[in-house]
């Protein structure tokens, strides 16, 4: 694949050292008025640069809340969120908006494309907010994601899988430090979902740091070698999985010698 786009290089370290830690969440709580689910209760997590991490948990466990706090779209009730050396709690609204624009790519379950803009225009929005025309890069991304031929279509005329690929292009247009994906295949059929997951795996192999939220353990372990389990607002497990090449017979047995005797 030529004309490939290099993603994930952390360009703007804010003077911080270039060690591999990218996200540090320390003892955060999030309390919602009226006991809405999704609260967090004392969560601490660090994410390394270049990691593909899955956050897994049932609905209402707080896993999406955690993602929103890392993205700077929401603020914790207490505790700190530091991303790329920037303490998000120290940023005002404008600073937080700038942080999101420059460092965060966000992919959602229901795409959230603007209906009155074409695919290409949707992809370009985050760059335009920055005053960056970026049309060359947008074209490259569309090409890369296999949606060049629908660039001028409106979202309503795209399939779910195409809409999600447009949303991914939009998330990548500003070369985000961190790509966040909240159930990105949740609204897709299995084939489109597999394509989206394949794409995330490819981006990760090229160095993109990815944080994936899902309730699906099969998806969580597809590319992520680290799975953080959240239940009732708490991290109950932080599993670092191994990824050796195993022979089929070491992974799955329809019937073993011993059992067949």
């Amino acid at each position: 694949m030529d004309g490939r786009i290099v993603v994930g290089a952390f360009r703007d370290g804010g003077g911080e050292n270039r060690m591999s830690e990218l996200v540090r969440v320390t003892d955060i709580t999030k309390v919602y008025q009226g006991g809405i689910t999704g609260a967090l209760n004392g969560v601490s997590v660090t994410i390394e640069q270049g990691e593909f991490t899955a956050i897994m948990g049932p609905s209402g466990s707080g896993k999406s809340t955690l993602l929103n706090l890392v993205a700077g779209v929401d603020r914790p009730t207490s505790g700190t969120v530091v991303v790329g050396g920037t303490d998000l709690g120290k940023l005002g609204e404008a600073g937080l908006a700038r942080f999101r624009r420059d460092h965060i790519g966000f992919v959602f379950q229901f795409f959230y494309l603007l209906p009155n803009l074409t695919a290409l225009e949707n992809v370009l929005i985050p760059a335009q907010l920055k005053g960056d025309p970026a049309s060359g890069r947008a074209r490259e991304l569309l090409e890369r994601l296999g949606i060049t031929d629908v660039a001028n279509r409106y979202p309503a005329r795209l399939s779910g899988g195409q809409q999600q690929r447009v949303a991914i292009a939009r998330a990548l247009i500003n070369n985000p430090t961190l790509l966040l994906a909240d159930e990105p295949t949740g609204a897709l059929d299995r084939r489109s979902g597999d394509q989206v997951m394949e794409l995330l795996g490819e981006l990760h192999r090229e160095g993109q740091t990815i944080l994936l939220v899902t309730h699906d353990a099969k998806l969580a372990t597809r590319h992520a070698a680290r799975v953080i389990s959240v239940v009732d607002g708490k991290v109950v497990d932080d599993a670092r999985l191994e990824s050796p090449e195993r022979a089929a017979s070491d992974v799955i047995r329809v019937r073993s010698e011993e059992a067949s005797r």
Partner: protein
Amino acid sequence: MSLKYGVLGLLKAEPLHGYEVKNRFEAMLGGTWDVNIGQIYTTLQRLERDGLVRPVGARGDRGKQSYELSPAGQKALDDWLAQPDSGPQQLHEEIYVKLLLATRIANGDLKGMLARQKRAYLQRLRDLNRLEERARRDGRIDLARLVRGALLHTEADLKWMDELSSERFGTEGAKTE
């Protein structure tokens, strides 16, 4: 199931001798079922005794004998294929017995056991995902489908661990005695 229907199914396509049956069977299963040549010969002898296969042609070099499906073998194969897999569910894994015992033992450390088992299932899912990816890359769609089944089974096991983790455990096991 035994090897019996696997052998019948392979002979349906063309006559084969023992080693060919072994090789094709292992290739079909992608290494997920160990067979030794002795089992194949025993199976072929029994099938011949029961009239489901019959020798075809002369013995080749080193006494290799090919077999073909008889009409009775064909019928047995068709019946088996038409039959759904039913009967009691086979649970081969130790975790089922461990859990039953742990609920009866005061220091069974159920929570720890469930957490460790959950980890093991996550690792298995990871291994299965990578195997599925490799099978697809190698064009082994049949193996990839098998692995997909294993993924779904493991997901169910993991969900079971989650359900158990949210339960309170007492010494309920003791009451059943």
